[in-house]
């Protein structure tokens, strides 16, 4: 007993507790940065709220960077460019200065909408045939188009913004230097693209964590990108298009078998032109014309849907899905028949987006069966004519708006990183058609056909909806579904974005299977199969269908709502 007492002296107990604490602190030491706490269920529809301004983007740090710019007195264009730079640092796998895109701008004081096109172009020396029999571009350097992003951002900033290049790069530099915790989305995409990164960026790249993909929670930093942005901020974009960075881009592309030269970069210029305009019921829509097909097809789809009793059919009901899928198949037939780069071919855009042509398509669609063939439209008067992304929405306190979609094409682009620059080069050449007789055939200086569709909708001449999405050829289908969800099915903005999605297309005039998220009722799949559709069920919230960002302006309530897609890491920041 005495011995036992001796064992439990004050000293022993104190010494035990101290040791215990030491052991605990060892086992509980922080090993990695924590991911910011999302709402309990990130897929639960949630509208961000603002009154003066709002930025919605695919990463919380980028959205917050844009909001800070608005609060500092920057306008929507300043904030959009700030957000875009910040996305290069925070969501580098989807867009950046090595890519291209489109921006729709609404200038409130002028009540004018304009479009800035900074789509990548094919290098001057590109060979006529770059696709192999499997549809791949090899070597990878041939997949790189001349980047337009930086030229487009700076053009918009100089013409419509109020801040300097140094101002709008500040937050991006901070993000790149300090880093952030990698999300599930980042980690998964990083794993998916691992092979490409190992091949083209090498095991030592910052886009891999000591040669392995990043796990959720790992710290991602990109000091080289910070250095590049500092250089651009101090020397201007000539550094990128004519200076040291241009030389690094050309070297990196050509080392991987590409054909870009310094002249290609020096000659790159963005283009500003009027928007494409359409209507749906009481709403007017402004979006982008070719070389993106997205704007044309959204207007086309809305024209087709306009006369259908979609409200009666019900949201995501089998008749609604069937009819919209049949419409999509017609639209894809037109896409491959007519659309390409307007600098090189003439296209019947006015005819394609006319209500008259939509009625012709509606007339052919059967309510209870599939067509065997989906012909492209024929327009007598012009019969001789030849012929993975991110989205940012911004509105400022004066009502100026930017709807910006940009990309490096596939996630992580080519995986090629010019030496010590920290940014990824696009693989946009994959957007050209394999068919040399296609209107979207490859050629020097040509811009490949895109599906991006940044848009702004107005109701009675007042801004109502700002919307856009990544997702390749699913973009215009997904955006159409979101618009119908809001206007016809009375959903709130984020409810409309999170609602289950579907997609189909036609190829060589033949129907392809419908891809649907797995959240539809079993009965819906069965009904569609009975009609004759083959179906392919995908994940419940599948980024295959894009990652839409939107802003809804409730004029009567003086409230701005932001909707950010949980299929990616969307986030809204309002004030």
């Amino acid at each position: 007993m005495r011995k036992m007492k001796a064992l439990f002296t004050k000293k022993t107990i104190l010494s035990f507790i101290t040791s215990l604490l030491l052991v605990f602190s060892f086992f509980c030491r922080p090993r990695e940065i924590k991911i910011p706490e999302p709402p309990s269920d990130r897929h639960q529809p949630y509208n961000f709220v603002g009154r003066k301004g709002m930025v919605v983007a695919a990463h919380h740090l980028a959205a917050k960077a844009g909001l800070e710019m608005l609060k500092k007195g920057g306008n929507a264009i300043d904030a959009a460019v700030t957000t875009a730079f910040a996305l290069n640092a925070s969501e580098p796998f989807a867009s950046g200065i090595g890519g291209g895109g489109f921006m729709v701008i609404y200038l409130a004081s002028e009540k004018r909408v304009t479009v800035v096109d900074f789509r990548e172009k094919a290098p001057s020396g590109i060979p006529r045939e770059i696709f192999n029999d499997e549809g791949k571009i090899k070597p990878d350097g041939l997949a790189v188009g001349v980047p337009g992003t930086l030229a487009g951002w700076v053009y918009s900033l100089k013409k419509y913004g109020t801040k300097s290049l140094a101002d709008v790069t500040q937050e991006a530099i901070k993000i790149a230097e300090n880093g952030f915790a990698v999300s599930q989305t980042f980690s998964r995409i990083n794993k998916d693209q691992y092979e490409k990164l190992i091949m083209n960026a090498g095991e030592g790249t910052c886009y891999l964590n000591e040669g392995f993909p990043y796990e959720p929670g790992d710290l991602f930093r990109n000091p080289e990108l910070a250095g590049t942005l500092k250089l651009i901020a101090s020397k201007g974009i000539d550094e990128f298009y004519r200076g040291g960075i241009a030389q690094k881009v050309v070297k990196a592309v050509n080392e991987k078998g590409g054909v870009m030269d310094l002249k290609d970069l020096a000659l790159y210029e963005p283009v500003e032109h009027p928007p494409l305009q359409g209507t749906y019921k009481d709403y007017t829509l402004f979006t982008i014309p070719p070389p993106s097909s997205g704007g044309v097809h959204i207007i086309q789809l809305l024209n087709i849907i306009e006369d259908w009793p979609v409200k009666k059919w019900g949201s995501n009901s089998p008749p609604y899905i069937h009819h919209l899928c049949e419409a999509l198949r017609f639209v894809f037939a037109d896409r491959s028949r007519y659309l390409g780069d307007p600098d090189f071919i003439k296209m019947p855009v006015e005819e394609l987006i006319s209500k008259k042509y939509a009625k012709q398509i509606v007339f052919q669609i059967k309510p209870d069966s599939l067509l065997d063939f989906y012909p492209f439209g024929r327009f007598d008067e012009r019969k001789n004519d030849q012929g993975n992304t991110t989205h940012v929405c911004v509105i400022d306190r004066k009502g100026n708006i930017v709807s910006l979609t940009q990309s490096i094409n596939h996630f992580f682009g080519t995986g090629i990183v010019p030496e010590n620059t920290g940014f990824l080069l696009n693989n946009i050449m994959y957007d050209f058609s394999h068919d040399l007789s296609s209107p979207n055939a490859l050629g020097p200086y040509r811009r490949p056909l895109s599906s991006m569709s940044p848009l702004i909708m107005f109701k009675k001449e007042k801004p109502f909806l700002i919307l856009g999405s990544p997702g390749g050829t699913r973009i215009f289908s997904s955006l159409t579904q979101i618009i119908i969800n809001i206007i016809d099915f009375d959903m709130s903005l984020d409810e409309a974005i999170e609602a289950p999605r579907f997609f189909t297309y036609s190829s060589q005039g033949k129907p392809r299977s419908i891809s649907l998220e797995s959240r539809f009722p079993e009965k819906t799949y069965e009904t569609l199969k009975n009609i004759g559709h083959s179906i392919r069920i995908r994940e419940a919230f599948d980024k295959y269908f894009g990652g839409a960002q939107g802003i809804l302006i409730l004029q009567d309530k003086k409230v701005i709502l932001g909707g950010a897609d949980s299929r990616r890491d969307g986030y809204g920041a309002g004030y």
Partner: protein
Amino acid sequence: MKKTFFTTFLLLTFFILVIFPQEEKKIASPLFEQPLLITSAGQSAEVRLASVLAKRGELNFILSKTATPKDLENIKTLALVLGVSLKGLGAAGLDVAKEKERVNLLIEEAQKKNIPLLCLHLGGEARRGQLSDAFISAFLPKAKMVIVVKSGNKDKLFTRICEEHKIPLVEVEKTVDTLEPLKNAFK
């Protein structure tokens, strides 16, 4: 004083053993021989990851994402990287049924040749789901050893199957942590 420290040491050792049992089962002795053939079961990108791990572990290996029975010639271990990617399947010109058939044929041939199967699941939670789970359930019971990145076993699917079939399971925190158990598993 000596007694105090001794008692503290004993108590502490006991405490650590009770509170922090070792999560990872150490493999007593190497189970596999080289060379190994690394292939995919589902065409996810993790197959390439496995090859980088094998390279860093200085293992003698061959990588063939779509290996067939004839690739087992002179092979001593078959390493199957589990995880279905529709994109990967598409790129390889395969669908789920064809891929399952390919892997089945490969395992059958391996069994005929007494080549043991090592299963790896490196994609974590993100590489789970209906399709991947079907592959896991079909092929895991045939493994001689399994290494899984912990987040992929949150629901203990791997634990259940391994316990049921008495297969040694090694759980690792991150993909990079696979290196040590992988190296240790080979002679």
